[in-house]
């Protein structure tokens, strides 16, 4: 799916795709087309795309409960993703996983996670394997500001620090963990500063600037490939949507949200592309139409796909 090697326009298109995908999913949920729950990453497109743009095909990515953007940025097929949300047999997990649990190992995308902080040790172990196998590669581990308070964060970064593992810990600080503002859950200004406790470099980056994210990730990746170990990259961003569907957002003001919308990462990238002469209105419209069409296709694909046969329920628990 991805127009490798993530040209400026490709990154723009991916960000649009993620945005449109998430908006559509929210609509479908509120129309009752999709069951369960979902965590939209609206507003955080630049972190997903910036990091994935810095990765190579042999790298691995672990994601979170808010993982659609990570997956799309890594090349996930919107059709199979949407089908998974619908609980259809054609979904990435045949409908078993839903929003939080889809993966494509061929793409090096090892899946989201229903457990906040649950993927941090897993990514660390992936990096351990990469190192043991002598492969050139890194593990990119997305995690939230809230997840940085889990014990697994500490334990994993410690192991990465000890063993100089090739990991990029990408903390998407979107200012909230569900309803908890980061200032109420992390008593320091920058989560990146926690890296020092593990002998790792910690970097703060504007998470709404796709180029800045990409540059930080590329530098961290180069460092990891050179055998110098892991980096913690804190991407300051904002979750424009609610935590999950049904969130009344009583814990923050609409003004705050409006101010955050001014810093929308997609608009910022668009403006820069315009400035650089890489994009004009017509091209922008065409890209948007294309993305719109891709997401519509995904919905059509999902809706026309069959549900899994209940008779298969018991299959595949064991290898």
């Amino acid at each position, binding site marked *: 799916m991805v127009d490798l090697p993530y040209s400026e326009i490709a990154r723009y298109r991916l960000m649009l795709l993620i945005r449109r995908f998430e908006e559509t999913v929210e609509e479908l949920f509120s129309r009752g087309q999709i069951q369960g729950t979902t965590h939209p990453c609206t507003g955080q497109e630049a972190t997903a795309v910036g990091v994935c743009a810095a990765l190579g095909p042999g790298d691995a990515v672990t994601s979170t409960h808010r993982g659609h953007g990570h997956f799309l940025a890594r090349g996930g097929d919107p059709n199979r993703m949407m089908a998974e949300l619908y609980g259809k047999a054609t979904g990435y997990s045949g409908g*078993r996983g839903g929003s939080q649990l889809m993966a494509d190992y061929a793409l090096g995308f090892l899946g989201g996670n229903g457990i906040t902080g649950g993927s941090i040790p897993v990514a660390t172990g992936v990096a351990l394997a990469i190192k043991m196998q002598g492969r050139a590669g890194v593990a990119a581990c997305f995690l939230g500001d809230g997840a940085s308070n889990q014990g697994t964060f500490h334990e994993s970064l410690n192991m990465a620090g000890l063993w100089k593992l090739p990991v990029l810990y990408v903390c998407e600080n979107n200012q909230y963990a569900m309803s908890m503002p980061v200032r109420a859950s992390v008593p320091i200004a920058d989560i990146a500063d926690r890296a020092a406790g593990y002998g790792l470099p910690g970097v703060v980056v504007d998470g709404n600037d796709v180029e800045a994210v990409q540059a930080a990730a590329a530098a961290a990746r180069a460092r990891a490939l050179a055998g110098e170990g892991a980096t913690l990259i804190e991407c300051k961003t904002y979750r424009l949507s609610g935590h999950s569907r049904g969130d009344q957002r009583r814990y923050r003001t609409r003004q705050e949200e409006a101010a955050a919308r001014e810093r929308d990462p997609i608009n910022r990238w668009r403006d820069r592309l315009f400035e650089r002469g890489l994009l004009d209105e017509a091209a922008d419209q065409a890209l948007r139409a294309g993305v719109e069409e891709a997401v519509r296709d995904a919905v059509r694909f999902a809706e026309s796909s069959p549900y899994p046969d209940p008779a298969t329920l018991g299959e595949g628990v064991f290898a």
Partner: protein
Amino acid sequence: MREISYTEALREALTEELRRDAGVFLMGEDIAAYGGAFGVTRGLAEQFGPQRVLNTPISEGSFVGAAVGAALSGMRPVVEIMFMDFIGLAADQLLNQAAKLRYVYGPQARCPLVLRTPTGGGRCYGPTHSQNLTAWFLHVPGLRIAAPATPADAKGLLKTAIRDDNPVLFVEHKMLYGRRGDVPEDADFTVPFGRARVARPGTDITIVAWSWMAVEAEAAAVELAGQGIEAEVIDLRTLAPLDIGTLVESARRTARVLIVEEVNRTGGVAAEVSAQLVEQVYEYLEAPVRRLAAPDVPIPASPPLEKAMLPNRHTIARAALEMVQGA
């Protein structure tokens, strides 16, 4: 008495106990402004302040441990774990601290801690947001376990739990939150631990269930009555202590027992109930004790798969019918 929902009943219990005892406080993720993922604590932070309705960071292992420490120091923490699926993170603190302190240190150690947690499927939340791991804690001496199925029991058992001097695991169910029922208004209404609830009397078969499955079993009994079969439905209400006496008495009369639960079949609560019943009423039984439970697979998100996985009134009625007719 008036009809309120299970959620309101829980909130009423919390409100009354927060008011009654300055030592009671709530802690957990997003329980203040957000009111918890299922709204149980909505409005309580406004009413009692952020000290007594304390939002925690996402640190299940340690905020449960902190609740242990607070409990040992004279407080009565009521902790919420947002989904029981996450309780593995706090399992060590429950197992090796909360549950053991009294036995080891004697009366000087008092650990009046309640751990409330939503459980169960039916909402297509998928493999890591639908589990009910209560059976693990049945195997941990020193923990009490309540799992109310009605609004009245939700209120009465939660109040008992908060007033109890032992650690209590308090198991709620997502499908129950919205259900309404009569609940006493009396601020001293409590429901004792260790007494099962006969949800419906009957003579032909005993159906034992707990949590949401008690509701489904009652509905199954209605179906069965249409076919001339009078099923006695017993809701365990508390799993520790387990009211084996009521089960034994019923089993002796009906001579047939079906145990229903929503969780994975192997190693569930029903296994223990089955084993105890066989030990105690073997000679009265006309058929082997049967278990109806979920198959041994993670619970899938897809609606038809989730539906196929979980027992419901129809599959319960069918299993009961087979047992009665098979005799």
